[in-house]
């Protein structure tokens, strides 16, 4: 299966991390409120962009999709199993054990089995994918992932013709994950996709970021990435993949059905009941930018939903 069009952010645009570190050093040396505030944005020469500022334009700095610095990607995480503050996962997940790692494959599949993760990933090529990541909380990042195509894994697992949905269950070990000791969400964290969504070439099972193995706070060792959906669809530390005929019961949808739908496609026209989804703050930028339908991947994925009422199926 090939992409009809390449993802809008080409892998070649991913800036080497060393450049980011140099840039940060430059920022630190430069000092000053302005420099500090635009740290993480478009680079040391972006100061003149301040002059382009147009109120209401929604984009005061850059309209490019520069990858977010590694430091920010790895220290600004929603991963309630390790605490509800954005800084908790980086702190609390340090000792999380990601090998050996079993992935149970169950449901409507030819051979239900316990896979060793390394066996599951064997012979499936690791790819670079630079994706926009839009959180339902109206902030966003650009993340240079490495991972395997979810479609390739699904083909390897050979679901039966009865399979209509894929459900991803994530690690539920209160010993290692302090957040699980409180019933803040119905544990374990479960996410799911329609099978045709899961087979879309943009869907990824991530194993790395910036060319390094995925850190625990980012969902190591295996994490779902569905770039046209809100970030919470991307289950972390996946331990079970189940194919089913019926729609999976997903965690956030179960916890607050009026706030978080099963589809959770990024949609600037459908607000969260408590806040607007029309705009988002890209980490590193001061001013909010417009949110794009399907997070900017409409050309690739909108056809999956043709004829559907996206307001009702939010």
């Amino acid at each position: 299966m090939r992409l009809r069009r390449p993802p809008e952010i080409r892998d070649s645009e991913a800036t080497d991390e060393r450049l980011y570190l140099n840039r940060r050093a430059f920022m630190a040396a430069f000092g000053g409120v302005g420099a500090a505030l635009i740290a993480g944005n478009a680079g040391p020469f972006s100061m003149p962009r301040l002059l382009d500022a147009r109120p209401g334009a929604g984009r005061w700095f850059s309209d490019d999709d520069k990858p977010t610095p590694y430091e920010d990607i790895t220290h600004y995480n929603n991963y309630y199993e390790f605490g509800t503050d954005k800084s908790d996962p980086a702190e609390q997940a340090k000792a999380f054990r990601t090998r050996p790692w079993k992935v149970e494959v169950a449901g409507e599949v030819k051979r239900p089995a316990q896979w060793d993760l390394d066996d599951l990933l064997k012979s499936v090529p690791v790819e670079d994918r630079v994706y926009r990541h839009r959180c339902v909380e109206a902030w966003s990042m650009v993340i240079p992932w490495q991972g395997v195509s979810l479609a390739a894994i699904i083909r390897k697992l050979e679901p039966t013709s009865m399979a209509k949905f894929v459900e991803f269950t994530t690690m539920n070990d209160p010993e290692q994950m302090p957040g699980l000791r409180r019933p803040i969400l119905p544990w374990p964290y479960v996410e799911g996709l329609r099978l045709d969504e899961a087979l879309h070439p943009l869907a990824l099972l991530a194993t790395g970021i910036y060319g390094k193995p995925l850190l625990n706070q980012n969902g190591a060792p295996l994490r779902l990435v569905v770039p046209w959906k809100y970030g919470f669809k991307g289950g972390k530390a996946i331990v079970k993949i189940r194919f089913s005929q019926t729609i999976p019961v997903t965690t956030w949808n179960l916890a607050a059905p009026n706030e978080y739908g099963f589809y959770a496609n990024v949609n600037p026209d459908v607000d969260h009941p408590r806040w607007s989804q029309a705009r988002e703050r890209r980490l590193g930028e001061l001013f909010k930018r417009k949110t794009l339908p399907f997070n900017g991947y409409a050309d690739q994925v909108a056809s999956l939903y043709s004829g559907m009422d996206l307001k009702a199926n939010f």
Partner: protein
Amino acid sequence: MASGSRSPLTAIRSLLFLAGLGPALWLGWAALTSHLGPDPVHTIQAVTGLSTLVILFVTLAVTPVRRLWHWNAIIRLRRMIGLFAFFYATLHMLSYVVFDQSLSLSLIIEDSAKHPRVFAGLASFLLLVPLALTSTDKMIRRLGRRWGRLHQLVYVATAFGVFHYLWVVKWDIREPVLFALVFLALLAFRVRPRRTGDIRRRVSEPSETPAPVTATEPSLRPES
């Protein structure tokens, strides 16, 4: 705790002033040294929002402290504390207007019409504006008894602030619930003495004023 001693009060006032500046100084330091985190605007909004609510609670705690400890002079500190709350509320609101809505009035109106949490936040701020404007000695004298009634708006403003915080938080509402409980406790204190009959102090007109302390405040202020 005699009300006459001025010098300890001056020392406390200086300490309170420094404490009130604390969050703003931290934000300034963090901005200059890249310590505002991956989402600087969110950090600014969290610090200024929490500071506003905490300081509003401190202003509401003045009356309980004054009654329980028979420390009347503390009332002279309340204006400064209240103005600090307004200071952080202003920074909080400005960060929303500038960074979140790019100074667009239509976006702000739409956002506050659609989303109660935005409405509550703006309402809380707008209610604090007249309180800040009438905080001068001149206005206190000019408004007389009406000053006390006007300043009871602080309860409404704080209530809006507490709801704003409850609605802003995505899921883990432990902190906003704690804030709501503190607010309720501060309110309960004001109800309790009237029910049980306050024997510790003279209550001049209990039937007339829902919050006697607020109403009698102007006369307790320094006349300078």
